[in-house]
């Protein structure tokens, strides 16, 4: 009886943790959405600032995502490869920041699109991810897609000859 209660509590906690993760995840998406929409609404010099903020925020998040690999189960298959990939994504985050600093904004935006989407595919290939529940898998897929779209929207703003803040 007490075992059943303890099991039920564990399942409930797990369900709650997934809800909390997805809630925090979507809250974390708000700055991406905000910074990608601001340029289209206000234009002018504020647009450049918004895109740089988006890139800076994105570089922090992708570095954080790369660091997640250190917390994954050590005895799963290809964990050494996973750690290397984690370091790679952290370095990508740093390079996005550097490219932004040196004014290669478009390149930084395109790398962001690719890196967020490719990190999702990398995470999906791990053993631990396959054991996750379906809601978490859907949430990760949707979040990566939304972030990539937000960077695509900013890339379009930067490429567009009528809105590019530099030209």
């Amino acid at each position, binding site marked *: 009886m007490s075992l059943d209660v303890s099991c039920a509590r564990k399942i409930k906690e797990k369900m709650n943790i997934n809800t909390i993760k997805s809630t925090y995840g979507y809250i974390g998406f708000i700055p991406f959405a905000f910074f990608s929409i601001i340029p*289209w*609404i206000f*234009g002018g010099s504020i647009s450049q600032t918004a895109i740089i903020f988006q890139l800076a925020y994105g570089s922090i998040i992708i570095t954080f995502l790369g660091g997640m690999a250190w917390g994954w189960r050590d005895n799963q298959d290809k964990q050494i490869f996973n750690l290397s990939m984690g370091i790679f994504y952290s370095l990508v985050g740093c390079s996005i920041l550097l490219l932004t600093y040196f004014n290669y904004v478009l390149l930084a935006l395109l790398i962001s699109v690719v890196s967020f989407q490719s990190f999702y595919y990398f995470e999906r290939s791990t053993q631990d991810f396959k054991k996750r529940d379906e809601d978490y898998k859907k949430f990760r897929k949707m979040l990566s897609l939304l972030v990539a779209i937000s960077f*695509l929207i900013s890339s*379009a*703003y930067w490429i*567009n*000859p*009528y809105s590019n803040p530099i030209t």
Partner: protein
Amino acid sequence: MEIQKQLKSHGAWVGKWTFILAATGSAVGLGNIWGFPYKAGTNGGGAFVLIYLGCIVVIGLPIMISEIIIGRRSGNSPINAMRKVAIDSGHSSAWQFVGWSGIFAGALILSFYSVIAGICLNYVVIAASSSGVISASEEFSNVISSPINLLFWHTIFMVLTALIVAAGVKDGIGRMVKILMPMLGFLMIFMVMYSMINGDFNKAMTFLFAPDFSNVTSDTVLQAMGQAFFSLSLGMGSIMAYGAYMPKDQDVTSTSFTVASLDTLIAILAGLAIFPIIFAFNLEPGSGPGLVFVSMLSAFNQMQFGQLIGPLFFILLSIAALSSSISLLEPGVAYLSEEGVLSRRRAAEIISFFVWLLGVGSALSFNIWSDFHLISERNFLDSMDFLANQILLPLGGMLIAIFVGWFMKESLIKDEIGAINPVIYSLWRFFVKFIAPTCVAYIFLSQIF
């Protein structure tokens, strides 16, 4: 028992998304793409969009829910659905007039819609091969001045429509909307992305969304009400016919909300795809055939990759037209086949033939019949448009709202609508009883006088 038997004879949608895609396909037509964005832009931008959304809630959604309830309750075509539900509610079977009016309106609309949609198909070829030597307006004059050309593409479009409807609910309409609607969505997103990168997107955003309440007049409200009513394919029996194939466990309210949202989203995306290009080439924003066949072609002629982007745009328009046209033909075909008068295939062939024949008049009214007036000063096409859009549709929509609001037995309504928040139910009842019929009557009278 009888309902199940009828459903079996027509088939039913597979999965809950099929109804949503089919109803959205029916609602999203040429009017959304070439009408809504311009109306929004010239009537206060964001202010118009807000009023329009309000009108969707108080007019569009209540009537859409009513049509679905009647259709699903009976599982029959609009004529039999109205008759059956009226009898079940203890009223005269004369209510079937609403079904007849819808089917008749649908056939009239399809007759000229097919001619316009045929021009869209023709423009897929024209945009791909246009060298820009002839101006876009000259090109359009050449297209509409040739009766053979118009009739050829009108015939192609009608055959496509008839083939899909003849194949049945599951294998024809259901299968096609699952292909056409994602294709429409993909093309629309592609066009928006293209406009975002190459067009004057900021100016288009300002044109469409910057709220200007000083531009809002009583005419703006009337335009928004009309757009909310006409854009959802109400009053013509299409939604009622599609509702008849809806699974019993599908929630009517949330499904209607999804359809109305998708319809609005596509209309807004259409504006974001078209107007950045129009502004980038310093062309005058407009609406209707002039916008897509003259202004857009002119832009495609001038732009890089225009011979690739142009055809894609006209394929998008043709898909939107085809998904609407099948919903216009379906109610009549469903009626004849369920009555056992004809097989589904034969019914589709015969109705399509008569619709095609009517369409010949509309095709000729662009050229050799341009001076022929049928109703007052209107040519053949405008007369069909007047009869269907200005008389039959508002009349049908108003009568549907009055029937569900005042005459349909509440137990039948509750049975179909299922578990629903009591506040939302009360609001819906209020809108369908008082607001929707009054507003549609206002639209009707303002169009007539």
